[in-house]
């Protein structure tokens, strides 16, 4: 079969199993766009801004586990994609970004819409390719998907000069069965000696904590994690990226840990004698001051990435490999030694945790005070959304206070349901990510919990939602300010709200949603909240934008006291541990 470079690209993507591409056309990508027009196997989704394309592909990847695919043009198309690529990189999300480039003979001449995409993207990609010879396209596509999805996943860029896709140059097409990258060899199976050492440590622990993060989700290890804890019966905490990997409604679940983690999760981590870290990287939002972190705990660290282990917190036992495989190996060995383990040994530990939980745990009944004398509490909005969706929705979020409230109060029982930008903290992520999820699961409820600051960073995608009829529900927790910035200014800068408010210049979000052809609902009173949400979720075939005005003075708690241990938390505006 003789094909042009552009047609080979489309064939290769199809042979790789790609069903959807999110993109935006432009000069350097026009040969590829013509190839898209002439085929019917892959759907292309036209976004309104390249950042939207990357976040949508990212949301699709997080929800499905399959790599997201993006197609952009050179120059501004490529640079606009960078924020989304960096977002995926920080959270280890598999993604392949194809960028058009000016023709080979123009590279280096400051040609129209020329930019060094490989150079600009280098620090935020797992790997990148330039196509120098069109016949390499099938091999490069195969390698790119292999690199993006194996080991610790991440984004891969393929930069394609325009002449490489020219219709007049034809090549024999065959898609390679296997990627052969001789220098790339991520660990898969764990070292059995390390598994033995880990199990020995577990058997003698009296205060263990399982600390699972995004790596456990990337490895699809929810069954193994659950089985492990059926044996151990240990308390489990999840990072922001790990929410859903262990059922939040399980008795052993402590909630999220870290900066805005629950009191019991942070206390348990601090006082543990053993931390079993599973696909988590001891981020600074988790450890607070590393030198004061969990002084009495030994650390078993399961990870696929060598460089994540002992980077911040020294691991006593490192287990490299796909965490799913490592967990299986641990479960097997634990089962053989089951006579040496008694759940009763953890009794004291559980009663200590129960005491922490009852003294300063999150208040799950905020919504019960629905008197109109008080402004709506943002936490109550999330709790209502949880109830109305029966805890079953895919929830995307943006970044800030609403994100933390969603993480604290929406209880995820399944992985890949909580879709947020954890590492990079990208405002504008929520709406396009929700589009990606909705494309993957058109029959599932998809909610974007956002704020009036974040939503305006990718608001243009409301137009994409109309074009493709995506009935997403947008819950805008509107405090008329950059809430998290304001909270820090309240706590650390004497309440000087430098450039964090704009209440007189906000758009009428109801009219805005309506002008894009959607439904808008404004909620200002506690007594209207429940009914408004029920109405929104009853409109199955419409995008509904629910603009909820909440108490602008509310802060997110608990909050770690900077540069201290996990025991040091603000529990409210005037109460410290």
């Amino acid at each position: 079969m003789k094909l042009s470079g552009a047609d080979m690209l489309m064939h290769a993507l199809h042979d790789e199993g790609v069903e959807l591409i999110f993109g935006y056309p432009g000069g350097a990508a026009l040969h590829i766009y013509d190839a898209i027009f002439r085929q019917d196997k892959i759907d292309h989704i036209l976004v309104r801004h390249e950042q939207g394309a990357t976040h949508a592909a990212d949301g699709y990847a997080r929800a499905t586990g399959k790599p997201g695919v993006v197609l952009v043009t050179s120059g501004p198309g490529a640079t606009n994609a960078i924020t989304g690529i960096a977002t995926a990189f920080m959270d280890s999300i598999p993604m392949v970004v194809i960028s058009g480039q000016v023709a080979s003979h123009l590279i280096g001449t400051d040609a129209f819409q020329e930019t060094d995409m490989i150079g600009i993207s280098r620090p935020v990609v797992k790997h990148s390719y330039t196509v120098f010879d069109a016949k390499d396209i099938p091999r490069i596509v195969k390698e790119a998907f292999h690199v993006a999805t194996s080991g610790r996943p991440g984004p891969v860029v393929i930069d394609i000069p325009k002449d490489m896709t020219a219709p007049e140059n034809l090549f024999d097409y065959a898609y390679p069965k296997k990627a052969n990258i001789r220098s790339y060899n991520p660990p898969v199976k764990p070292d059995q000696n390390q598994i033995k050492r880990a199990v020995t440590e577990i058997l003698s622990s009296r205060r263990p904590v399982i600390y699972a993060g995004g790596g456990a989700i990337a490895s699809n290890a929810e069954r193994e994690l659950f089985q492990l804890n059926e044996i151990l019966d240990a308390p489990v905490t999840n990072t922001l990226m790990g929410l859903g990997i262990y059922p939040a409604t399980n008795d052993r679940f402590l909630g999220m840990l870290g900066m805005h983690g629950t009191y019991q999760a942070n206390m348990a981590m601090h006082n543990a004698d053993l931390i079993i870290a599973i696909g988590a990287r001891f981020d600074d939002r988790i450890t607070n001051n590393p030198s004061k972190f969990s002084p009495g705990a030994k650390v078993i660290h399961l990870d696929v990435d060598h460089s994540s282990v002992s980077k911040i917190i020294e691991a006593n036992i490192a287990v490299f490999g796909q965490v799913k495989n490592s967990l299986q190996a641990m479960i097997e060995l634990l089962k053989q030694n089951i006579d040496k383990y008694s759940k009763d040994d953890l009794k004291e530990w559980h009663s200590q945790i129960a005491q922490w939980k009852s003294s300063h745990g999150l208040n799950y009944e905020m919504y019960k005070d629905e008197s109109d004398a008080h402004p709506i509490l943002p936490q109550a909005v999330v709790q209502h959304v949880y109830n109305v969706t029966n805890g079953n929705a895919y929830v995307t979020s943006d970044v800030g206070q609403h994100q933390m409230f969603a993480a604290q109060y929406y209880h995820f029982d399944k992985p890949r349901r909580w879709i947020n930008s954890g590492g990079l903290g990208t405002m504008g992520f929520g709406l396009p990510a929700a589009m990606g999820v909705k494309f993957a699961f058109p029959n599932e409820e998809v909610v974007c919990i956002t704020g009036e600051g974040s939503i305006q960073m990718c608001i243009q995608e409301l137009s994409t939602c109309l074009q493709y009829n995506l009935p997403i529900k947008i819950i805008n927790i509107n405090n008329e300010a950059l809430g998290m910035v304001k909270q820090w200014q309240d706590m650390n800068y004497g309440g000087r709200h430098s450039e964090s408010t704009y209440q007189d210049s906000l758009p009428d979000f109801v009219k805005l949603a309506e002008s894009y052809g959607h439904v808008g609902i404004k909620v200002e009173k506690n007594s209207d909240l429940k009914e408004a949400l029920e109405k929104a979720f009853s409109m199955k075939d419409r995008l509904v934008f629910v603009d909820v005005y909440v108490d602008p003075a509310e802060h997110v708690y608990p909050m770690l006291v900077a540069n201290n241990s996990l025991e040091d938390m603000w529990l409210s505006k005037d109460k410290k541990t």
Partner: protein
Amino acid sequence: MIKRKLILIMENKPGALVRVVGLFHQRGYNIESLHVDPVDDFSSYKFIEERLETKFKENEISRLTIQTLVSDSLMRQILRQLNKLIDVIAVSNEETTYLKGVLLDENLL
């Protein structure tokens, strides 16, 4: 802080060197000196070739020598980060070598 020598065997591909140099900048490590040579004589790298699915051909690999001023713990982190780069086949310091992602307790390069 001690002056340390790192040796890398890597694919001689466009952009490979800049990934190594960029990593030092990105992670806040310092380069004291840097030397790159194409590898013409593969005989001293037979032990690497044995582990590869496709054998070395002429002009395909380079040898990089980097001197850097670092502490012990940072040295380990630099090694691990370099090992993660897709084009790096092997990297070693005085005591250890990562060869195709596998850590060995000796300096083989």
